């Protein structure tokens, strides 16, 4: 059946042949080929830095390939810019939304449409299309006031209004509740049945297996495999992405948890930020030896909650936050660190580390008030305090850096590079490892593996579990439910600044978490009560 090349190519909606993209020394894409048929949901898989985003940006015209060719419905095309891509019928939903907070839904959408579109009639069209596809939107709402799920709907509706033949989605479900994700899958299936191709980037292999018809896997910028995801397991897909088997995290449940080391009682915190979330009467206890995870959709108060725990935001009532039984709600972050607590914020570059400081100086930033690192590489060198009598001991800081980077497999070019020169995954390993080096009794970590590849994520999760099993209390704030179920002993859900009680993780189904995420505390609590009574 290969007598003519023309027929062969024309059955594809899009072909990207032998795409190479060079950034300086880095070959972000190296001879990558991808093809996709109309009506097909095609997964594009790979670890962070494997070149997925580069490839879709080339297809969408935001980047220019160094070499290689694009074919659209069998015809060679050049896509010099996103407008040209949209003209062909390619729409894209970005991972980091390309929305403007200060503008309304209609204004945001009109910016992506050709300039001859009548803005007056647009609101009506938005309402029609959004209801038609089950993605309800208020056209005159200000984007800043919308939830992340609603924002994504804007991006999708914006693409749909252009009647795309190909829809590119970059990690669309990372920000959604399970229910919202299900709704998205319905929309995608409908689009595919109408003949629209979908190029789907995701880290969530289970959902890829569930909805995708075909998969292209990239590794280090090269094409690693082309497989039928429904014939694979999540583990085999992960192995293809990483190149080796990913070590499964050992999740042995430790001994019964001990005394509470981190206690929150009646923690309320009003925000003065227009787009912030106020915390409302949060009660939670994390005991020695256990990991409690806080699930929730982004923007439901996780940032404020973390700040309240770390002491970046202080409470007026000292008793609302207790570390090892001592009230410290009014204390700042340094005083809380002296109580043997450690904190890993969500944003690693800029918040967790100073970009243009070398790693050893970034060590000093969180180790300055404590006695010494407790981790050792086993070479007999004991750690000593990095700051003594107000003076920085650079050797001690470099020692900590060496220990951390060895134990956490932080890959770097020079022994003590600037934080910003590390890749996201490696910097995350450093930021987590730096706090681990203190072997704190209480560890609070926000989004421990956000944007981190499978191998690094497994390493970080294992370290969290090991720390808890060693007798510390670990609180993980995460939006990744797979991660939460992998590490957590108990799970609480935060929604609009309110926290549910912490349920043992084996008692929670995905569905119930989804309900809690959507803010249905009472309903779930009642169901739980009935189930308990029955």
């Amino acid at each position, binding site marked *: 059946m290969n007598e003519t090349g023309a027929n062969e190519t024309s059955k594809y909606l899009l072909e990207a042949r032998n795409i190479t993209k060079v950034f300086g020394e880095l070959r972000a894409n190296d001879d990558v080929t991808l093809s996709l048929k109309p009506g097909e949901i095609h997964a594009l898989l790979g670890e962070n830095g494997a070149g997925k985003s580069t490839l879709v940006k080339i297809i969408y015209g935001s980047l220019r390939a160094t070499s290689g060719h694009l074919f659209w419905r069998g015809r060679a095309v050049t896509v010099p810019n996103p407008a040209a891509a949209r003209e062909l019928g390619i729409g894209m939903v970005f991972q980091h939304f*390309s929305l*403007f*907070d*200060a503008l309304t839904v209609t204004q945001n959408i009109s910016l992506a449409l050709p300039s001859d579109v009548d803005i007056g009639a647009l609101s009506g069209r938005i309402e029609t299309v959004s209801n038609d596809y089950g993605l309800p939107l208020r056209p005159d709402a200000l984007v800043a006031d919308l939830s992340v799920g609603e924002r994504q709907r804007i991006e999708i509706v914006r693409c749909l209004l252009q009647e795309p033949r190909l829809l590119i989605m970059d990690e669309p479900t990372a920000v959604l509740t399970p229910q919202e994700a299900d709704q998205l899958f319905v929309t995608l299936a409908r689009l595919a049945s109408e003949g629209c191709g979908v190029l789907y980037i995701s880290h969530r292999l289970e959902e890829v297996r569930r909805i995708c018809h075909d998969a292209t896997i990239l590794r280090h910028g090269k094409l690693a495999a082309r497989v039928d995801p429904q014939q694979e397991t999540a583990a085999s897909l992960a192995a293809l992405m990483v190149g080796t088997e990913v070590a499964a995290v050992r999740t042995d449940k430790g001994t019964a948890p001990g005394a509470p080391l981190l206690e929150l009682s009646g923690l309320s915190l009003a925000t003065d930020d227009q787009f912030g979330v106020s915390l409302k009467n949060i009660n939670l206890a994390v005991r020695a030896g256990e990991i409690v995870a806080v699930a929730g959709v982004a923007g439901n108060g996780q940032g404020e909650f973390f700040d309240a725990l770390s002491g970046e935001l202080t409470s007026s009532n000292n008793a609302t936050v207790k570390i090892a039984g001592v009230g410290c709600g009014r204390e700042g972050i340094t005083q809380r660190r002296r109580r043997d607590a450690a904190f890993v914020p969500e944003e690693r570059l800029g918040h967790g580390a100073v970009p243009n400081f070398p790693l050893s100086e970034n060590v000093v930033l969180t180790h300055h008030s404590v006695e010494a690192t407790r981790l050792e590489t086993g070479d007999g060198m004991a750690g000593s305090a990095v700051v003594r009598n107000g003076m920085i001991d650079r050797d001690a800081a470099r020692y900590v850096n060496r220990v951390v980077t060895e134990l956490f497999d932080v890959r770097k070019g020079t022994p003590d590079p600037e934080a910003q020169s590390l890749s996201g995954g490696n910097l995350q390993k450093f930021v987590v490892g730096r706090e681990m080096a203190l072997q704190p009794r209480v560890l609070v970590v926000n989004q421990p593996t956000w944007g981190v590849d499978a191998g690094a994520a497994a390493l970080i999760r294992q370290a969290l579990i090991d720390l808890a099993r060693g007798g510390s209390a670990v609180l993980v704030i995460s939006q990744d439910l797979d991660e939460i179920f992998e590490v957590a002993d108990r799970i609480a859900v935060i929604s609009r600044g309110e926290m549910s009680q912490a349920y043992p993780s084996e008692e929670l189904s995905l569905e119930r978490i989804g309900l809690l995420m959507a803010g249905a505390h009472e309903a779930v609590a009642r169901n739980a009560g009935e189930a308990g009574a029955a």
Partner: protein
Amino acid sequence: MGALEAVILTIITASTPLLLAAIGELVTERSGVLNLGVEGMMIMGAVCGFAAAYTTHSALLGVGAGLLAGVGMSLLFAFLTQTLMTSQVATGLSLTLLGLGLSGMIGEGFTGLPGIKLEALNIPFLSDIPFIGPVIFGHDILVYGSLFIVAGVAYVLFRTRLGLIITAVGGNHHSAHALGYNVLRVRYGCIAFGGACSGLAGAYLSLAYTPQWIENMSSGRGWIALALVVFSTWLPKRLLVGAYLFGTVWIMGLYVQALGVDIPSQLLSSLPYLVTIVALIIISGNKTLTKVNTPACIGQPFAPER
């Protein structure tokens, strides 16, 4: 001419250069660029406007020259900050210093020469009506021009696609770029518009306010314009109020002083600043409106990846 008429006329004359410079900077900042060189662009507009008018004996040509001088200065700023990616703050400050120095050099031969005054438009009948005639219909082209520009900017910003694009570029340049808008081109345009308005403000000083060339005659008005933009929360309507309020209090202070009222002159000369700041703080009490109108990307450099 009655006293009230005279007061109103001087208020309008004092407010117009502030309004012109500030409305230009408002557009520049809306696109996400902070140009601290307003004072420098203004003084260059003043000296070039005067020089051209004196040489050609045409005040209108002077106005044109002032405008071009402002645009020239702003394009230098645009090239440095947008293409060469220098710091906007440092470059803007240098632009002011450059303008003050350069204008002194250009204007050396023009100091003390009799100026060409930009004549008031004489509208038949209307300008002859007592009181209303001089107060409303007796101004020069730049006074009407400044009001027209403010109305035009408000219309473009809030009613047109171009305005939406400017706001989008200033609100999130990465998103604007991802959607295929040319961020640098939009910013170049807005910077040049800001330069043109500052140049006009300068020309107004040397052709209408005091029709002669005096070194440093902008005397800090560029900085006041910058402050007005921030306090107006980037809204043209409020900017208009702010500029005229400032002009009013300033002129009232001068009259009070002339009348010999026993108030320290330092207090009187600081009064316009105080009153304007307080008034604009009060009207910008709506935090949502402020947040929504603040260009989120202001001052941040943008380099498109390619």
